[in-house]
């Protein structure tokens, strides 16, 4: 047992050395955990921000101009005027996601109490924006209409406020009061990068050794296949976890100002378990795909599926129910829930220990699968 551990340690050191000797690779890793995280977190937004709006104003009255002025940054870009025939073209190319079509004589009809309607055209291909954006836009416009109604002395038509029964909702968003996308994206980005790096590095390390024949050489020495595989998992895993932690703390927490609610020790151990289990999956894939080009092609769909379906970029709750069940097989789905619980909701060990155990089990499963095919991989010619 002692020898087993010491061999793993020796091989892990060697692995780290090889990893760090490829400078371009190191540069890519650093880019991935710094620039990429910041750009993605600050850039992408799930809230309504800078949404491009155009106005086809057929009225050109004081009221229509007022409504137009109400649409303002930061939620919306300053509306641009478009002519009727250009509306379709601009929306086709995604230049505007919202177009307000204000009918002729709008102000007059409005003051006469005929309840004219403004048409809002919404580009429904922008899924994350269309729904909430429409809500924002109509409430902004409704507010403005309400205000102008008072100004124009059209009190009768505004929502009446006699002393009636009414409850006052007080909405409180927990864990992320401003629904800031940076909070979520920063963390999600790190999870995604962690996943891709772990998968590719551990798998590629096996294939490189196989293609160069060094793995054969190791197996002649008093070293077992399990030691080689575990050393790869440990070495690549710990380098990646270290990078991820530095990135999480310095970039996401300190620079981007995302609070980390939960216990940092718990987070680190969860991250370690996840990386170990995912690295085992990487090694398993490498054992399946005999050459580097094949491995690369196998990795891409695996990574994209696992990442996109993990509930990191789109909510798990929106998936069909069977899919929600199936995706629990993926360690990434477990880890995303784990991180959301710990980082955002501040959960403790007693809430998340099940996920940790599941991830551990998955890792062992992949590792055993990989080891069982390790020798047969070498004897293939």
């Amino acid at each position, binding site marked *: 047992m002692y020898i087993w551990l010491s061999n793993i340690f020796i091989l892990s050191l*060697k692995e780290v050395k090889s990893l760090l000797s490829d400078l371009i690779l190191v540069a890519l890793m650093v880019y991935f955990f710094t620039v990429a995280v910041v750009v993605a977190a600050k850039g*992408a937004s799930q809230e309504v921000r800078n949404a491009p709006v155009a106005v086809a104003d057929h009225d050109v009255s004081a009221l229509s101009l007022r409504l137009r002025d109400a649409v303002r940054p930061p939620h919306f870009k300053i509306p641009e005027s478009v002519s009727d025939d250009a509306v379709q073209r601009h929306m086709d190319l995604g230049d505007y996601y919202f177009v307000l079509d204000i009918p002729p004589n709008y102000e007059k009809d409005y003051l006469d109490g005929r309840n004219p309607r403004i048409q809002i055209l919404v580009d429904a291909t922008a899924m994350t924006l269309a729904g909430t954006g429409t809500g924002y836009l109509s409430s902004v416009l409704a507010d403005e209409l309400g205000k102008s109604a008072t100004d124009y002395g059209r009190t009768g038509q505004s929502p009446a406020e006699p002393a009636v029964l009414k409850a006052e909702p007080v909405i409180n968003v927990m864990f992320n009061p401003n629904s800031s996308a940076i909070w979520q994206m920063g963390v999600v980005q790190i999870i995604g990068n962690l996943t891709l790096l772990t998968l590719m590095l551990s798998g590629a390390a096996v294939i490189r050794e196989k293609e160069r024949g060094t793995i054969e050489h190791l197996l002649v020495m008093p070293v077992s296949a399990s030691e080689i595989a575990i050393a790869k998992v440990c070495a690549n895993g710990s380098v990646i976890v270290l990078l991820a932690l530095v990135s999480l703390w310095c970039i996401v927490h300190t620079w981007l100002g995302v609070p980390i609610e939960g216990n940092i020790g718990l987070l680190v151990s969860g991250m370690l378990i996840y990386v170990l289990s995912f690295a085992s999956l990487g090694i398993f894939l490498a054992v399946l795909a005999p050459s580097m080009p094949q491995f690369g092609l196998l990795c*891409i769909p695996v990574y994209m599926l696992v990442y996109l379906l993990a509930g990191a970029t789109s909510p798990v709750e929106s998936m069909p129910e069977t899919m929600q069940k199936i995706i629990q097989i993926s360690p990434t789905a477990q880890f995303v829930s784990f991180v959301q619980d710990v980082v955002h909701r501040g959960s403790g060990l007693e809430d998340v220990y099940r996920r940790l155990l599941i991830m551990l089990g998955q890792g062992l499963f992949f590792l055993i699968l990989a080891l069982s095919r390790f020798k047969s991989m070498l004897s293939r010619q």
Partner: protein
Amino acid sequence: MIMTAERSFTEKEDISCVVSVDHLSHRYGRVTALSDVSLSIGRGLTVGLVGSDGVGKSTLLSLIAGTRIIQHGSISVFGCDIADGAARDRLALRVAFMPQGLGRNLYPTLSVRENLAFHADLFGLSGKDKTERILRLMDATSLTPFADRDAGRLSGGMKQKLSLCCALIHRPDLLILDEPTTGVDPLSRRRFWTLVDDLRRESPGMTVIVSTAYIDEAEGFQHTIIMNDGTVLADEGTRELMDRMGAATLEEAYMRLLPADKRGKEGGFNIPPYRRDANEACAITASGLTKRFGDFTAVDGVSFEIGRGEIFGFLGSNGCGKSTTMKMLTGLLEPTAGTARILGREFAAGDTDIKMKVGYMSQAFSLYEELTVTENLYLHAKLYHIPLKRRVETIRKVLDRFSLYHLRHEKPASLSLGIRQRLQLAAACLHDPEILILDEPTSGVDPSARDMFWDYLIKLSREDRVTIFVSTHFMNEAERCDRISLMHRGRVLAVGTPEELKRSSGDESLENSFIRRLEEQEEEENKSREQASAGEDLSVTDLRDNPQNKGGTAGYISSTGFSGKKRTGLFYALSMIRAFAVREAREILRDRIRMFFVIFGALIFEISASYGISFDMTAMPFGVIDHDGSPESRALVREFGGSAYLYEKQVDASMAPVNIFQKEHVKLLIDIPEGYGSSLLKGEKPEVGFMIDGAFPVVSNNVRGYVNGIMAKYNARLSDIRGAEKADAGYPFEIRFMYNEIFRSVYVMVPGLIMLAMVMFPAMMTALGVVREKDLGTISNLYTSPASVYHFLIGKQIPYIILSMISFLLMTGCAVFMLNVPIRGSFWALFFGAFLMIAASSSFGLLVSCFVRTQVAAIFGSAILSILPAINFSGFLYPLSTLEGAAYHMGRLFPCSWFQIICLGSFTKGLGAESFLRIYVIIGSMALTYLLLACMLLRKQEK
């Protein structure tokens, strides 16, 4: 000569001098490979280049061939300055270079014929000329029966012959061979030189420069250059040199020229006779060892016994099963039948005791390229558990013994073949094993180092009683063994002491005895094969009967003149591109696994992701903490429970809200204060608390919207001033969802997934294109050919574009027919856009490939660099115009976001090509930019 007459472009050609090297120096980091070398080589000579490992032979040859960038000094070949790129391209037609290493210019997954066809295409041969030339070369080298065998499955000798054929395909005037016979068995070696001699007779004007580790081979050449430490020691006629030094053989002359410390063992070996102790168990026993790979039997019932302390030699042609037998003895391979016993024990999995006692050295270099010499040795020392105290001393000793001390901080990549072999040997002997299994340990190692090494082996065997099992192609080494075993085609032909073997076949030298046995064996096999399949090998007999080939090699160099095709213009460029494209396509077609991944990987990805990724509104769980419990509070809860978007989940109201979120995973928690009901009825407008889980902003924004909506309705019902209908009539907006009226994600997701696949897969495939050829060594074909870098890159790209287009069509078909996402716009607009996108992403892959140094970095770089713009900044998840800062620009600068517009446009928005004209131009110019950058990064020479 016909050829020279045709090649009238040669400027001021000096008839007598083919190559002239002037004050040439070359360094690799701190190591000097060449220092101030000047020499000249006359036309039509055969020149042998001799020297020990790492003296700069390979460097000199690759510089002359123009595949390496000159650092200092100058070289002119056929009167053209080799530093000039245009001159190099013209010279490529007259010079052939065969790099070091078995079959380094061959593609292992292509057949013999395909390899030859590719080289012929590279030099612009076509039609009848090409087929005739290929047939003749194959016939001359007797490769014809193996025309359809993969190059990777040829034996070493056959690989070398094929390599030579590939080098000769364009009838060169100067042939440069870098250690062509290293690692080749004596029979194949003899045949190889016969072949070269024949060729020379056919075209006496051809100059041949050969570097070799076998000095006896160099004796046959007219001229000899001896190098040491990057300088030239002798440069004169072979005869003259031997006369001048007063030596009977060139080897002797060579030894005398060298400084004393490099001379190795003089006066031969004194080997104490081996005495076997009858009572002692055998060190290695093999009985009936058999190994089959599929229907191919590599080793067939091999049995032998090796006594303790014996040196047992293993001889045989390349590919006869020596390495496989050795691998079975080390436990790397499981025998199909039979047993192998090491030190009296059968190998069991995980038997580390035996492993501790065995040292193994494999044929190919198998230490870590990225670790230095010392680091590699330390790794071995640690893994063999050499105690810390002895480690430093042991390694120091080994470094000294194998003269590696001055190189201890170098990485193996910068060392020559021979020195790398020495390092491997050092590693194998490091832990003082009881048994050494050495697979061709000395191939590529120079004579003095070999002698030193054998001296050490003999000492180990006789003094420390270490058992040594060694395979070799050197007959003088075989003579030093106590016993040798001759192997052929998986079977042992003979075992005995060298003397016994010589006696039994009646030959004077072991080499002749060996060759005679092999030839006899082959004849027998041929006879039986011809009998067995008299009619089967029609193609072979056909060729033999062909009158043109009757004369064997006669006239096959000069019979057909060089086809005088124009070497410039569009046609030429297209034919070059076609050559590379055809080769790449053949390789892909052979690689079924890769095709499967590209096509089905993409489909599986599309189906499961479109099923799983969704922003559709589904019901979310909410919890209630009701401190009031009045009918009014229950009515409020009912209002929420009645919503299609929410459902109630029972929660433990005594817990703190934070804990409820943590445990129950509700998205919304309604907190109704005490006295809510009564306060409401009094018209006091009581507050109701709503807590939303904000961990996922998309969800929390939606939930907030639900709460506002439901509360508005609830209040309206309470106040009952306007009926719901009337309120609706007063709603001042009419909202129209365009393109996706029922607001279903799948219509948006599926086009996006197609975009993702077309960004990622082509880039991933081409990313390995260049760097993998560098790894395998086949990039030298580009270096030595007249083709330019852009022929190479575009040719490489074409098959991947076609494969990706097929994948695109399948994905689109799947979207339309399986996932019911119709193409509302123009299919052809989408098709053309996909073509441009694939061109762009595959060019991007090539760009990455030209930039990085390792395959790992290549797949990694292409994935990392393209995944972020593809998933986050393309408009796939978040609309592009809502991105900010760097993200927005990254989105705009990569083609993904533009292609996303085309995908969404033609699938969902019903647009045609006329809407995308500007976007086509943008994506197209991005593709061109990537490709141009890649062309600029890839040099046609090595550093």
